[in-house]
């Protein structure tokens, strides 16, 4: 009898685990998400638009398709592996988004509770993505090109300068005062001069983005190199290390966490410079697209460009975090983005 009860309890254990991993509550949230998106879809189709938008029906049908996918995914989650698990985790967010979109749709396109040209409905933004895609893509590529060039130059120059000041007192003597004098100046203050003195607005903007990136990278690399414990150098020197080894294999790896802080700060301030430079000088890029849309009072285009811009910036930060996590696996307890 006792053996029987033992085998009985072991058989019950996995069943209990399944029930725990898949409580009815998670189905409930999935169902709610599906309903929220269904409501969004129906809200698009139920009433006539107050304005003239061509994508209302496609948006409504798209939302209903999403609702169907969520429903299917919720009940089929066990057979979908990682995707099902991901859906389950994001279900509460899907509920919130569906509700928000519904509200947005009703408040703008259907009853115009929000003043209209300034608050375009979702279908107007969708229309931008479908109908103005080539121009938007051109702008995206122009922005990425400008940002990437300036950022890489600024990061490289800043890193090298920082290591040199941190390592050599002679370099520090000359560069440090210059850095203190020029560094804190916002890079955008150079805009008027830069656009005059550089051969093209593109090179001027590259310079400004590099400047905005370079300052924090320099300062943090420098402080990182300067704060390396002398015990590390002692160890390396007694083991036969030459100065080049001390710089490349001791000072730089030890300073790398600081360098990444500088790279993050530089990324933030260079985004600001990018947008301003594009608005004022360069006739391309998302900043210019925003400016252009404002000139035509094309508010939907502005929102569309803003969304793309925020995705790009967020993507860039994520990329930097991934790089850092890969390079600094030896650190414990680092912030996850």
């Amino acid at each position: 009898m006792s053996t029987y009860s033992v085998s009985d309890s072991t058989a019950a254990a996995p069943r209990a685990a399944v029930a725990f991993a898949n409580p009815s509550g998670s189905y409930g949230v999935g169902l709610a998400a599906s309903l929220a998106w269904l409501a969004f879809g129906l809200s698009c189709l139920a009433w006539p638009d107050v304005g003239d938008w061509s994508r209302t029906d496609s948006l409504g049908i798209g939302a209903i398709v999403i609702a169907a996918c969520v429903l299917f995914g919720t009940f089929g989650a066990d057979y979908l592996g990682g995707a099902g698990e991901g859906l389950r985790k994001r279900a509460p967010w899907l509920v919130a988004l569906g509700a928000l979109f519904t509200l947005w749709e009703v408040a703008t396109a259907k009853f115009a509770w929000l003043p209209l040209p300034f608050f375009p409905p979702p279908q107007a933004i969708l229309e931008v993505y479908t109908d103005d895609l080539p121009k938007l893509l051109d702008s995206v590529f122009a922005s990425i090109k400008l940002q990437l060039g300036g950022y890489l130059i600024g990061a490289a120059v800043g890193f090298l300068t920082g290591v040199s000041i941190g390592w050599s007192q002679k370099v520090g003597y000359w560069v440090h005062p210059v850095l203190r004098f020029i560094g804190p100046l916002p890079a955008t203050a150079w805009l008027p001069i830069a656009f005059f003195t550089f051969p093209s607005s593109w090179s001027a903007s590259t310079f400004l983005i590099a400047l905005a990136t370079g300052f924090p990278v320099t300062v943090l690399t420098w402080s990182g190199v300067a704060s390396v414990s002398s015990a590390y150098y002692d160890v390396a020197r007694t083991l036969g290390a030459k100065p080049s080894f001390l710089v490349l294999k001791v000072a730089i790896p030890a300073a790398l966490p600081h360098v990444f802080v500088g790279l993050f700060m530089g990324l933030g301030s260079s985004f600001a410079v990018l947008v301003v430079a594009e608005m004022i000088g360069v006739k391309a890029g998302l900043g210019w697209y925003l400016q252009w849309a404002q000139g035509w009072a094309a508010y939907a285009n502005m929102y569309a460009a803003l969304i793309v811009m925020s995705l790009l910036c967020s993507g860039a930060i994520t990329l930097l975090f991934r790089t850092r996590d890969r390079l600094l696996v030896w650190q414990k307890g680092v912030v996850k983005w």
Partner: protein
Amino acid sequence: MVTQATTEAIVYPAVGAELDIEGVSHAFDIDGATLPVLDNVNLAIAPGEFVALLGPSGCGKSTLLRLVAGLEKPRGGTLREDEIRITGPHPSRVVVFQDPTLFPWRTVWDNVALGLEAQGILKTQRHRVDAVIDLVGLTSFRNAYPHQLSGGMAQRVALARALVNDPKILVLDEPLGKLDSLTRIAMQSELTALWQRKGFSTLLVTHDVEEALVLANRVIVLSDRPARIKADIAVARPYPRHRGDPYLAELRKQILGLLGLEATW
């Protein structure tokens, strides 16, 4: 000054280097004042000899080791390795510091490989790294990062990092200080075996009188700061030594007396 003549001639292998410390004095400047740390220290270590340094905390033992390593220049006197004046660090004199100071961005294996890499001979000598990691018993932790190690394990990595260079003089600053007593005893016999096999000269700083007596050919007792040599005691006993040996117990009593601790033994 208490000196005992070595009663039996010990033959050392030829690998170790001779170390001569002649009239070495040193001081630090702290806030304008001068803090004398070493006062006319004279010490000659024969090739392959194992010498232990004992002294009160803060008397200047680590400072003396830094001078031997060539990390600092003495204010007075000279240090010579095999008749050649010590002017800077050299991998023939490797130090195991009081703190393990492992590089946190390197794995255990890469930390141990540091010396060979710095000397540019790692490519052909990788087996030496593997061997010495096996020796300190960390084979399964070769890919771990320092923050994943215990204090004692980190100390063993530091020891391995020094040993892999096949030094002529091994300088040890309380290398077993952070180990629990069991590991400590195991590492002590490991160290003796290694020293006997390889024949390097050894200069060991320790707080533990018994450890000094079990390991060393000679025990040097230093005075309070500024450190002077108070006694130079030969430990004429063959290895392996036994902790209960009455001869060692007698020496221990004598040394504790020199350190002003006769009541506590």
